[in-house]
């Protein structure tokens, strides 16, 4: 039986010295643990538990290049690419393929907020890095272990106690290498007591002709009383694959909102793992997928209520057309002795073509009596009565369908707590449904080439 992991393990074994020379000791220490964890590991196949719809063995089996030697890519991504979410007055950072662009390689303090690549953060904030890097990510997950094994850099974002970041921080990740490539992306976000920050990542692919795989891990620490917004948007190409795992440690009274948006992609598996560790914490976990063609979007969520009197609200919506495949598996766990937890989960899906497929699996596991929890999942088509009503007012069938599809996802967008982004998302979704959203909108060079 094949094992797609083997090629990466072999690569590590061959390149270990090079990798370690280029990386902070902290990353290298975990690398060795990851190597052990991968010893007998296998990537999940389609149909195995929690992978009803996705085959990671196939995703990782492709022969991607890995930029072990840290060869620089020349293009300045800021010049070559304009993200589809401009004008937000964000503090803007770019990564192209696996490297942060110079804008992020110099440590930047925006007010008192620290944004720095790991290489610098390991020197300047060794205690924070040491205390939190890799602490949440599960090595039992082979994709997470693989990320730790090969990662060479990441972005460290630190908001000290009491600091409210004035401007949102935006990270634009771009694939533009002229070869098939796999990258390990990594974020560590530490938000101090009573601090607040809004983050936006946008994953883009500039070259539609190459196979790319982004294997990313994000760790978020929300300290007591903090507020964290994390918007994670993907607009990539049919040949782009993404496996992303987000881990959140929520402490008492923290308020965390995560909104994962997929507008265009190839294969995407998004894992969300939220540990609610302190009382009175509030969690908003939202997701929106619009998929057509052969797009594949699989979301897996786990919210663990480990403390009493917390509130979580989860809603994922999918609109699937053509031969798109969507999957949602969500689990809410309320541990013993966690009274007064309120946890709501919803997954609503529209299949606008009979060839589109949706897999959904809501789960509640509750070990405390005095809680309020609910889950609901539905797959359906557009409301025929509403369509007819609109048509009698002169709205053509295509336009009526678009309006209804936009309306369907509107509440997920309205959950965005950043007005400019909310408006922009409504606009992008409108374009997406109208079929006029293309990567060319933001791409400055690919069009010149063709």
């Amino acid at each position: 039986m094949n094992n797609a992991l083997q090629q990466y393990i072999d690569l590590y074994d061959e390149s270990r010295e090079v990798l370690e020379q280029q990386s902070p000791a902290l990353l290298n220490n975990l690398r060795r643990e990851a190597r052990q964890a991968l010893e007998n590991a296998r990537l999940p196949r389609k149909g195995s538990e929690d992978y009803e719809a996705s085959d990671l063995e196939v995703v990782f089996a492709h022969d991607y290049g890995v930029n072990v030697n840290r060869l620089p890519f020349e293009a300045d991504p800021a010049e070559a690419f304009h993200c589809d979410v401009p004008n937000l007055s964000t503090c803007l950072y770019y990564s192209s393929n696996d490297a942060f662009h110079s804008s992020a390689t110099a440590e930047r303090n925006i007010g008192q907020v620290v944004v720095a690549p790991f290489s610098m953060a390991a020197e300047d904030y060794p205690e924070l890095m040491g205390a939190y890097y890799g602490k949440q990510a599960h090595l039992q997950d082979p994709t997470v272990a693989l990320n730790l094994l090969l990662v060479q850099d990441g972005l460290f974002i630190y908001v000290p106690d009491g600091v409210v970041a004035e401007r949102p921080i935006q990270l634009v990740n771009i694939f533009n290498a002229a070869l098939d490539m796999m990258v390990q992306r990594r974020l560590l976000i530490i938000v101090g007591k009573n601090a607040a920050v809004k983050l936006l990542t946008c994953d883009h692919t500039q070259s539609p002709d190459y196979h790319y795989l982004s294997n990313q891990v994000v760790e978020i620490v929300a300290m007591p009383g903090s507020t964290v917004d994390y918007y994670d948007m993907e607009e990539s190409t049919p040949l782009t694959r993404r496996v992303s795992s987000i881990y959140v440690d929520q402490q008492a009274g923290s308020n965390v909102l995560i909104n994962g948006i997929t507008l265009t992609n190839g294969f995407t598996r998004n894992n969300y793992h939220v540990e609610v560790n302190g009382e009175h914490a509030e969690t908003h976990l939202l997701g929106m997928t619009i998929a057509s063609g052969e797009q594949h979007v699989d979301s897996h969520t786990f919210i663990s209520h480990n403390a009493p009197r917390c509130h979580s609200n989860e809603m994922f919506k999918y609109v699937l057309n053509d031969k798109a495949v969507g999957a949602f598996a969500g689990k809410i766990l309320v541990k013993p002795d966690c009274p007064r937890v309120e946890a709501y989960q919803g997954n609503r899906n529209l299949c606008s073509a009979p060839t589109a497929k949706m897999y959904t699996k809501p789960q509640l596991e509750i070990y405390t009596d005095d809680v309020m929890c609910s889950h609901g999942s539905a797959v359906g088509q557009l409301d025929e009565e509403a369509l007819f009503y609109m048509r009698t007012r002169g709205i053509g069938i295509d336009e009526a369908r678009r309006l209804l599809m936009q309306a369907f996802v509107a509440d997920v967008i309205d959950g965005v707590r950043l007005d400019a982004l909310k408006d922009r998302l409504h606009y992008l979704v409108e374009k997406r449904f109208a079929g006029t959203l293309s990567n060319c909108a933001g791409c400055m060079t690919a069009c010149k080439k063709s």
Partner: protein
Amino acid sequence: MLVIKDLQASIEDKQILKGINLTVKPGEVHAIMGPNGSGKSTLSAVLTGNPAYTVTGGSVEFYGKDLLALSPEDRAHEGLFLSFQYPVEIPGVSMVNFMRTALNEKRKYFGQEPLSAADFLKLMREKRAIVQLDNKLASRAVNEGFSGGEKKRNEIFQMAMLEPKLSILDETDSGLDIDALRIVASGVNTLKSKDNATIVITHYQRLLDYIKPDFVHVLYKGRIVMSAGPELALELEEKGYDWIKEQVDSQQ
């Protein structure tokens, strides 16, 4: 403007309309009455092109065009309007967006430029006043959370915005209190002109006190079995439908 000849229609293989004949001219108000299940709402659904119904025979001409060959949206553009008995709630679609799209689709159909935002809002304000529709309702999602009366007023508001040539009011009086009924009726009367026409579908004489019909038709078992002037509505109010049913059933 409207010539219906021997119109027959069915839903799920059940024949509902069994040969309707009706001619409507500009400036006229026609009332269609009849007992429950006689096919009144089916007639309005078939005229507006509801895909749940199948036309099995007959023809409908609207200003010389074959109405049945047009899509529901094109029928609307050509000037046909239906005020729904049960207006549909569309969560997430704002009234403003809904009306602007509807108006601009119509303008596109006639090769006109879209209305500017300022002109559109001005038009909304003007037409809202006709049925005293609150601005708050206009900024909400279509019919979502509207009371029964608000929904019906909203129907007439849309009618005012779209300026149809032929309006079908399908039991617009159902679920309305007296005040709302007056507002709706006065809205309809304000919009009435010598160039447009109205078909009022109703169970009761009450609405016809406010919207005066020129003709009253009785629909029974999928056919128009009796047509007369407005005095017929009064007679029906007094005597009910049984005498007509008996008359028709004995002929069969």
